[in-house]
């Protein structure tokens, strides 16, 4: 399997090099990839928590007879 390409640009010589990742760079790439997946999972979990909390609040308000439509009207007052 081909490894991802990376680019180098030296401003002193204006030389540009594009090549595949070497072993060290590829190992770091896998670490970065795992960290990104972890962050995405963490963000998704946090969003799910927020959504659940919002749903709980709306349910409570509904029990009190305060519908989402009424809330929109109150916001505009």
């Amino acid at each position: 399997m081909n490894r991802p390409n990376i680019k180098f640009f030296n401003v002193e010589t204006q030389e540009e090099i594009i090549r595949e990742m070497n072993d060290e760079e590829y190992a770091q790439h896998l670490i970065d990839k795992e960290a990104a997946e972890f962050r995405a999972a963490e963000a998704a979990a946090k969003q799910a928590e927020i959504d659940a909390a919002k749903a709980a609040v709306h349910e409570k308000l509904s029990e009190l007879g305060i519908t989402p439509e009424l809330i929109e009207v109150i916001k505009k007052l």
Partner: protein
Amino acid sequence: MAIDIIPGVGPQNSDIAAAVNAPSAATIASTVASSVPTLAQINTAVNTQTNNSAIATAVAGAVPTLAQITSTVQSNAGSPFGGTWTNLGSTNYNTNSVTISGLSSYRYLRFSFILNNGESNNYYIRLNGDTATNYLSVVQSTVGNPNSGAGPWSGRASLFYMSTVPNGAGHQRIGVLEIFGTNSGAYKTIAGETAFIDSGGYWSGRTFKGTWINTSAISSVTFLGDGGSAHSGTIWGQGAN
């Protein structure tokens, strides 16, 4: 009229006349013409003097070329208080990362970038290839939800600089990134702003600030996609002292 003094004795008039006879005007003119150089000969001699070419060579070596003058003016542009600005050039890329090196002689660095549309990812910076958790960053949205994307994030392995670009025709993310004190023996301060225009034509932006907890001079800056993913765009650089 010559008078014969003693007829038949001594030089005769004709002898005297021959001895003292001055050259004729024609003879004089011919002699002058053959000994005095013509105007053409003088011009030729002057024009072929090696001194002229030597002078021209010396002048050419001492006077800067137009290209040299232009480069000096560009380098010094924007620095009325002294110091120098250097145009570092630009690079287009479509790779998992792009590393810009050769930066250690500058005290201040500025990078301007355009990310191509369709990039749906976050982007990060590493300095000198440092992958340790030496970066702190804060991102603040300037439009919409002010809490969106807010940090601070400490102890990260890279510095956040740009968030998702909408996937759609004509969308491009633009930004400017500044790094201060890049060759100082102190921690480095990074600041920047990115912006894009959404599908409704509304401007949306982020400002970000960060610190690299390292006192080494910055020799390279790496821009990479989240998780090392590929992204494409163009980066322009400037350095100043």
